[in-house]
């Protein structure tokens, strides 16, 4: 205890808390922008193909992707410090949630689970995209037609959006600018809308397989 008191600094706790908050916000921003880019397919394949060009032209891809990776890692470390790390702690929190049957506590448990899932799935996603860099309709459509990939993306999408929705709710609640119940409703709508948009986009991309000519190679 003495050592902890001597070495403990409240400023650090504050900075870490803020860093978690800011990294979270940035990732939310990224994810939503990302989803709008993907949804550009709803406008048409040309629009979709235009996006990576635009990104590269302004060096957003070259800087952006590594930056996002760093952000994700940072966020994982920062937020991860709250995750029950010992098996017994996990059991305790699981038992607690089951006993309590309290909605918000369950959502936190799911947030942890989706967080871990995103860590793994996003790594795979980034790897597949970057390893064959450039994004265009044909490559994406080809990937999406393989059904494991299609399911993979749906899972990643739902996890990501759920995580973001709950995360935003939690930030709002913690800092208290909004009424809890109202905030939760608004965020539920946004989350569902983006998930719907994402799924529709995925189907559209899938439907383009072969059509744009590149699909069957």
């Amino acid at each position: 205890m003495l050592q902890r008191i001597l070495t403990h600094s409240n400023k650090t706790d504050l900075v870490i808390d803020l860093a978690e908050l800011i990294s979270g916000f940035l990732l939310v921003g990224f994810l939503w922008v990302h989803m709008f880019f993907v949804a550009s397919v709803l406008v048409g394949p040309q629009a979709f193909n235009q996006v990576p060009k635009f990104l590269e032209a302004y060096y957003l891809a070259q800087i952006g992707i590594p930056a996002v990776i760093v952000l994700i890692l940072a966020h994982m470390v920062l937020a991860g410090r709250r995750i029950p790390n010992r098996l017994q702690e996990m059991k305790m929190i699981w038992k607690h949630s089951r006993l309590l049957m309290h909605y918000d506590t369950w959502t936190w448990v799911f947030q942890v689970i989706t967080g871990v899932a995103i860590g793994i799935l996003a790594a795979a996603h980034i790897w597949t995209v970057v390893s064959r860099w450039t994004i265009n309709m044909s490559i994406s459509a080809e990937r999406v037609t393989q059904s494991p990939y299609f399911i993979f993306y749906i899972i990643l999408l739902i996890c990501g959006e759920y995580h973001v929705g709950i995360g935003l709710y939690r930030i709002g609640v913690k800092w208290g600018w909004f009424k809890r119940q109202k905030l939760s409703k608004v965020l539920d709508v946004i989350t569902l809308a983006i998930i719907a948009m994402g799924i529709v986009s995925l189907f559209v991309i899938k439907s383009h397989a072969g059509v744009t000519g590149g699909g069957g190679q």
Partner: protein
Amino acid sequence: MALRTLKLEIFRYNPNVSGDKPQMQEYILEEEPDMTLFMALTRLREEQDPSLIFDFSCRAAVCGSCAMLINGRPKLACKTMTKDLRKKITLMPLPVFKLIGDLSVDTGSWFRAMNKRLEAWVHTNKEFDPDAQEGRMDNDLALRIYESERCIECGCCVAGCGTAILREEFISSAGLNRLARFFIDPRDERSPDQYFEVIGNEYGTFGCVGLMACDDLCPMEIPLQQQLAFVRRKMLVAGLTGSGR
């Protein structure tokens, strides 16, 4: 409403009796009109099992003695009516706190230690003058202080908080709410910096992950979410502008 035969499953364990093991024990009890769990437990003790340990004092939901897990949720037993529960009722002691026996836990020592840690009293250098008129205060402020002061230290919020279950030193929403009361009280001369020293950390305001079980479970309906957020914002400002380490 028709009266039922209730089946109560109660956690039994007396750490002071050597060889005793934790177990759930079942009791059958005839329901009575307007029966509260206080009445039900008292009847069990007087008619069936006088060794049953539990705590009640005011039996009027004002003293905070009788919180327990009622069908898994922390609640005040004295103001829980059996007619609002299903026929089968499980009762367990609150988690987090030290078990005294059966349904009784040592919330008193926990809260005393917490209040000491927070130095939850008015810090002032002024002397009391018995002949002088009292210091003035705006009535709205007095009511705002009262809003936090209403906490009866029952421990429902603590027992429902995932963070408190994992981290023994977490000051909990009851502690942060208590501190908010002194923070807004002009009679307390502590600076925001001094408050930041005590709770501007992982064991205080930044330890809360916003699960809001506390806000949903407080039997006094204290607006804990708003209190927690208020403290967090004040501590952010204090931490960024202050000279604390």
